[in-house]
Structure formats: C-alpha cells, structure tokens
C-alpha cells in the first residue's frame, strides 16, 4: 500500500465539503484518511451518531459513495446482511462488480454500548467486512452523555464533576482487546494524526479475509471543551501519553506495537493531555489530586501490560 502524497492528491475524496460537523471535529479527517485506503467499489453502513446526523441532513448528503444509515444497535448486522446479499446476487449472476468492500462505521456509543451485541454476532459469523469505530469518548451528538468509552475522570452531562464526584469513576472498555478475543483476523487502533499508519492499517483491514476491526481515536472539541484548533494535537498527545496506544492484533493473539507508539522512549504524563481540555479541569483541584494520580497509574499499568503482550521489554 503506497501512502505517497502524490497518490493521495490524485485519489478522490469520499466526503464533500458542506457537511455540518462542528468546526474542529476530527471525524471528517478520519473519513478522509480512510478514503485514501479504499481499493475499489465500497459500501458504507453508518450507525446513528454525530457523523451520520451531521453529514446527511435531508435532502443533501456529503457522501460521494454508496451509504446507508441504520440504527444505533444494528450497523454490524446490516453490514453482514449486505455482504451476504452481494454474495447471493453474485451466485445468481445479477451483480456486475467483482468485489465490493463493505465498511461499517459506528460511534463509540453505538459500538461500545448499544451496538455491541450485533457487532459481536457479526464477528462470530465471520462476514468479510471492516468495522470502524470513531471514538470521541461520549454520546457527543445527543448531549455529551457518558459511554463505555468515557475515560475515568471525564466530566459529562451524566457524570458531573463536583465536590462529591470526580466525573466518571469507572475505567474505559478495552474494546480492541474485547473484539480481538473473538479471534478475528485483524484488529488495529489508529488515530488521525498518524495518518500514514492509519492508511496502511485500514488497507490491511480491507485486504484480510473475514471481519476486521479498526478503533480510531477522534477528539471532539465540543464535548471535551477543548479549543477547536487543538483536535489533532490531542490525537497526537493521546498516543504520546498512552491513553490511546497504537497496535495491531492478528488472529486474536499476536500483538504488534505500531511505530508511533513503539518509538516512544517514555510516556508523557497524562496531565499534559488533560490540561488542554475543560472536561478534566476539576481534576486539577487539590481535592481530586489523588484521583488524577490513580488515572495516571492505571494508564501506566495498561501501557506496561500492552508492552509485555507485544514482547517489548
């Protein structure tokens, strides 16, 4: 897979301007970078979420490739239906394309929580499709409610921070590892800042036979109370602080750390990531000093665990 700038300029953009995503949202760049990795005709299934709501306000659409909207809970089921539908039509000789890639896209709410059952089912049945989650850490579209992807200490409208609570107390679901436990051929975590890494991984995901899963990290200036210009900086910091390490899991047990994470000699303190966001502001008050340290310990422990799995001492 070539990731040369010259080829990227030539390749068509799958999403047009004029969509109504917030200024500074990282989801449109994720879709744009994903578009560079496509290899032919593609069908996108999109679960309800910011991306779906803001890109297709009737009677307009920002998508330039076939796209279908489905409910929060069944995007993986619909994607598997499309894959099997194409197979059935091919057998009857009623389909003109040789191969069509099917991609399912869900937000973190639709993947970590609501759509998890259908995702797990589709992975178990082993249809040949790619599932991508763009993880912005809460149900940002419906008003910033906490989800399974919300980080500990994050303030949302259903986990308010104050004198009694430091925001969400529970930890984030390790979705990539949960999905890898289905023993599917390919799982990877990506972020838009390291776009070359993203393109290579996404192409790999399309090329494997059977289901593949991509976990993309997507900063949200509206919900994270961060500056709109800092979205890509936050995506970079998430990798550098170990909040969203980049790795691949092949066949469920072979862990490979990707270059941007592997080349880090030492993790940056999580404080640097938190300082840029208003949703972690309360953690810097003396009352929640200990909680912040706990979050740091948790991130470091997860990082060490991951390094051990990847065989890096």
């Amino acid at each position, binding site marked *: 897979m070539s990731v040369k*700038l*010259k080829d*990227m*300029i030539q390749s068509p*953009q799958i*999403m*047009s*301007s*004029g*969509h*109504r*995503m*917030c*200024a*500074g*949202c*990282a*989801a*449109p*760049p994720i879709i*744009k*970078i994903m578009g560079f990795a496509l290899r032919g005709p593609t069908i996108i299934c999109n679960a309800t979420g910011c991306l779906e709501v803001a*890109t*297709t*306000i*009737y*009677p*307009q*659409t*920002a*998508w*330039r*490739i076939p796209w279908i909207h489905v409910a929060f809970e069944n995007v993986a089921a619909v994607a598997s239906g499309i894959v099997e539908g194409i197979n059935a039509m091919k057998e009857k000789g009623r389909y003109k394309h040789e191969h069509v890639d099917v991609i399912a896209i869900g937000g973190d709410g639709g993947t970590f929580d609501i759509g998890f059952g259908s995702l797990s089912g589709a992975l178990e049945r082993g249809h040949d499709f790619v599932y991508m989650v763009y993880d912005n850490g809460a149900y940002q579209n419906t008003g910033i409610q906490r989800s399974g992807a919300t980080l500990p200490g994050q303030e949302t409208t259903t986990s308010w921070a104050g004198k009694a609570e430091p925001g969400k107390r529970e930890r984030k679901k390790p979705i990539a590892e949960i999905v890898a436990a289905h023993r599917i051929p390919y799982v990877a975590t990506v972020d*838009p800042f390291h*776009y070359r890494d993203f393109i290579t991984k996404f192409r790999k995901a399309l090329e494997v036979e059977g289901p593949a899963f991509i976990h993309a990290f997507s900063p949200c*200036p509206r919900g994270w109370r961060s*500056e*709109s*210009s*800092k*979205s*890509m*900086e936050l995506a970079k910091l998430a990798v550098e602080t170990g909040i969203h390490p980049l790795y691949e899991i092949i066949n469920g047990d072979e862990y490979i750390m990707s270059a941007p994470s592997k080349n880090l000699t030492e993790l940056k303190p999580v404080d640097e990531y938190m300082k840029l966001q208003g949703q972690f502001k309360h953690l810097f008050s003396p009352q929640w000093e200990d909680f912040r340290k706990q979050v740091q310990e948790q991130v470091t422990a997860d990082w060490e665990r991951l390094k051990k799995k990847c065989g890096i001492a």
Partner: protein
Amino acid sequence: MSKKFNEIPMGGNILEPGSAMQYKTGGWRAERPKHTPDDCLWLKNGTCLLCWIFCPDNAVKIAEKDGKRTYAFDYDYCKGCGICANECPNSCIEMESE
C-alpha cells in the same frame, strides 16, 4: 425542498452524491485562516500538506500542474476551526478575526 410526494425518490434516497456542497458552511466562521507562501513546504518542494489532510471541511484547495503548485482556501466552506494554523510546521497560516 418543496417537492411533491411523487417527485421524491423511493425510500427518500438521495440520488446526487456530495450534494451537501450546496450548503455553504463558511458563515460559521469567526476567524479566517491566512496563508503566507514564503515558508510553505508544499509550494517550496511539494511535501507536507498537513493542513490539507487534517482540514475537516476540505477547504484547503491545492493543485499541481506542470510542476507548478498552487494553494488557496475555500472560504465558502471553511468553518475557521484553526487546525491548519495549529498544525503547520512552519507557522505559515495565521488566524485573523473576520
């Protein structure tokens, strides 16, 4: 948008791809990016292009023809988020008030 019931495509499908182009989001902007070409790596030697890759609104218009490279912002769609100004390695882009 005022279409009769029998003029709407079946299932409410949208038949024209990328029709959101009709909606100009430039009005959302509070700050406008300004490009100074002096140190721009794209104009100099055809590399970098971080602003183009990271722009959420495809509002950075670049072109290369016969070795000549151009660079412009599409102010019809730019929402003024400032990602381009923040990511530019040589600080060629500045945000100024509308």
